[in-house]
C-alpha cells in the first residue's frame, strides 16, 4: 500500500461515495474554523463512547458531560496540529459522517447515533486489523486523538492512580 494521504483517500473514496450519490467536494468538512464541525462532533462522540467504554463514567448524565469535555479537548488538540494534519483529519471525519464513507471505512451499516456500541466497536476492530493500510491509519488516528484528549484531563487521573505533577 503506497497511498500517501487522505487526499488520495478522498479521491479513492469519491468512487465509493459516488454510489451514494455524493462527492467529496460536496461534503461538509469535519473540522472548520478552528474546531470540530458538526460532522466531526458526531463521529468523535460515538467513536469516543466506543473507544473509552470502561473508562467513561457509567452514569448517563456524567457520561454525556465527560464526552462534552472530550470534544472540547479534541478541539484544542486538533487546533495545535499543523494545517496538513488538520486537513487530513477533516476529510477523514467528513467521510466517516456520510453513510457511504462510514460503510466503506468503518464497515458500519447503521448511522453513528443509532448503531449499538458493540457494532461501532466491531467497526473499529475491522479498521484496526484491515489489510488496507488506509483503514488502519484511520483507526489509529481516532484511537490516538481520543486517548490523548481524554487522558490529558486531570479528572481522569484518579482512575489511573496517577497523582499528577509534583508541586515545586
Amino acid at each position, binding site marked *: *500500500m*503506497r497511498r*500517501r*494521504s487522505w487526499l488520495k483517500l478522498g479521491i479513492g473514496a469519491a468512487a465509493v461515495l459516488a454510489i451514494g450519490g455524493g462527492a467529496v467536494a460536496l461534503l461538509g468538512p469535519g473540522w472548520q474554523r478552528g474546531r470540530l464541525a458538526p460532522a466531526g462532533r458526531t463521529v468523535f462522540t460515538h467513536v469516543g463512547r*466506543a*473507544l*473509552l*467504554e*470502561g*473508562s467513561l463514567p457509567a452514569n448517563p448524565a456524567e457520561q454525556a458531560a465527560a464526552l462534552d469535555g472530550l470534544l472540547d*479537548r479534541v478541539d*484544542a*488538540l486538533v487546533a*495545535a*496540529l*499543523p*494545517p*496538513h*494534519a488538520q486537513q487530513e483529519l477533516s476529510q477523514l471525519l467528513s467521510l466517516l459522517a456520510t453513510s457511504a464513507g462510514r460503510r466503506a471505512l468503518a464497515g458500519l451499516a447503521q448511522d453513528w447515533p443509532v448503531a449499538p456500541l458493540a457494532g461501532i*466497536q466491531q467497526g*473499529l*476492530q475491522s479498521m*484496526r*486489523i484491515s489489510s488496507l*493500510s488506509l483503514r*488502519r*491509519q484511520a483507526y*489509529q*488516528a481516532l*484511537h*490516538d486523538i481520543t*486517548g*490523548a484528549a*481524554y*487522558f*490529558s*484531563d486531570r479528572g*481522569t*487521573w484518579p*482512575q*489511573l*492512580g*496517577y497523582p499528577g*505533577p*509534583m508541586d*515545586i
Partner: protein
Amino acid sequence: MSRLPDPIREGLARGWRVAGGPHGAVPDRLACDVAIVGSGAGAGISAEILTRAGLKVLLVEEGPLKTSSDFRQLESEAYPSLYQESAARKTSDKAITILQGRCVGGSTTVNWTSSFRTPAATLDHWQRHFGLQRFGNDELAPFFEQAERRLSIGPWLLPPNENNALLRRGAARLGIATAAIQRNVKGCWNLGSCGLGCPTNAKQSMLVTTIPWALDHGAHLLVETRAERLELANGRVTALVCVPASGEGPATRITARHYVLAAGAINSPAVLLRSQAPDPHGRLGQRTFLHPVVLSAAHFDGKVEGWRGAPQTLYSDHFLETQPIDGPIGYKLEAPPVHPVIFATTVTGYGREHADLMRQFPNTHVLIALLRDGFHEQSPGGSVRLRGDGSPQLDYPLTDFVMEGARRALLSMMEIQFAAGARRVLPVHELARPYLDWNEARRAVAALPMKPLLAKIVSAHVMGGCGLAGDPALGVVRPDGVHWQLQNLSVHDGSLFPTSVGANPQLSIYGIVNRLAQDLARRMGGRDAILA
C-alpha cells in the same frame, strides 16, 4: 508553576537581544558573522563556540522561548508548545510517530538526558564506509570530554526508579548485562518529567547552558521565526530568508559571512530542499534514520510508577554487542518515562480492554528497544520530501529486515519482563494481547505479522539526511561539516550522521559539532575557543 528562579526571564530582564513572537518585531534586514538556524543540540554548541571565538552570532528558532516558569509538567501543555507538530509528527504512511522538539533548546529542552558518546563500532563503520578518517574514537575523545564537562554529564548516583530497576533485575536473571546511563543534570530533583520541560532547570539542556551563555555575550536570538529558504548564487549562500512562524507578518532577510543549518534532521534537509540547493548525487534528505522503537508493557504486582524519578538510568547493549554491526539489525534496550497521554495513545486496544490497561497504569512497566538502522543495505533509512505547502515529510519504509529485528526485540523485552516477575506482558502490536507466560508470549509473537500500522513504532532520535562523507558522491557535507557544493554553509546537527548512532544521539551531536564549530571559528579568523 515553579517558584524557583528562572534564569531565562532574568536574562531577558538583563537585556538579552531576543526578538520575534511576544519579544517584539523582527527587523526586515539583519546582518551578522554567522547565522544559525535552530537552537537545539547542534545550534546551541555552535552558538557558544562561535560567540566565544568573538564572532557575531544570530540564532533563528521556529519555536517559542519557553522557560522553567512555563514548565508545569503537563502533557496537555508540553506537546503543543514544545514539540514539532504537537508531538504527533508521523512518517508519510503514518506508521511511525516522531518526537522532536520545537522551542528554544530544541529537542534538548524535552529530552530524557541519557548521554552516551558515539560508540567506537559506529565510528569504525563511518571511517570504513564514508571516508571519515578523522572520526576516530581517540581523536574525538577530547571534544566529547569538553561537552561532558560543559553540560555536567556524569554518573547518576540515586537509585534507579522501579521502571529501570526491573530492567536490571529481569536481565540479570537471564545473564544479560545492563549498565548505568550518564545524565546531563545538575541538582536534579528526580521528578521524572524531563520530557515536559525541566521546571527546576536541572537538566543541562541548551536552553539553560550554551544559549544563555551566548546571549550574555552578545548573540542575538529570533524566536517564533522560521527559516524559509537560503538564497544561493555561484556556489554560495547570499542570504537567509525568514518568516514569522505564525505565517503572518513581513519576511526578514539575514546576511552573514557563514550560515549554519542546525534545524534538526528532517527540518535541515527541508530548508535545503526549499532552497533548491545543489544535490548532484541525489543525497539530500536521503538516509534519514530513526532508531525505530518498539515497546513492551508489563503488569507487576507491585507499583512501578514509571512517571516518577529519572527516566532511562539503566540500559542494555547486549543485543547490539553480541552481533556484528552490519548483520541482522541489533537493538538497545532502555526503560522510558511513562505519562498518561503517551501511555494511552501508545498502548493498543479500545473499550474495556484499554480501560483495563489504563487502570493498571501504576503497576505498568515499559521497555523500549531502539533498532540500530543504517548499517545494512536493507536498512537504508527514509527520505525527506516537501509537501505542497513546503513543509517536510519523511518517507520511512519499514522493510522486512527492520521488522524482523522488531520481532526479535519484542521477544527479548518480554523475556526480560517475565524474568523480572511480570504477571502479564503486552507486546505493543494491534494483534497482540496481554500474555500470561513466556511460552505463550513467545509462540504468539513468533506468529505475529510484523507489518507497519500493526506493530507500534515510535522514534525520538531523528538522524541523517545531510550526511557527512569524505567523498561528494556519498554525502551532503564534507568531513568538516561544510556543504560539498555551497562553500559558506555548514550543517551542525543530527542530520550529519551517515548512519544512526546506535546510542541516544545527543552527546554525539554535542561532541562532533563541538569540533566542527571550533574548526569553523578558526577558519573564520576567530579566537581559539573551546567549550569548557
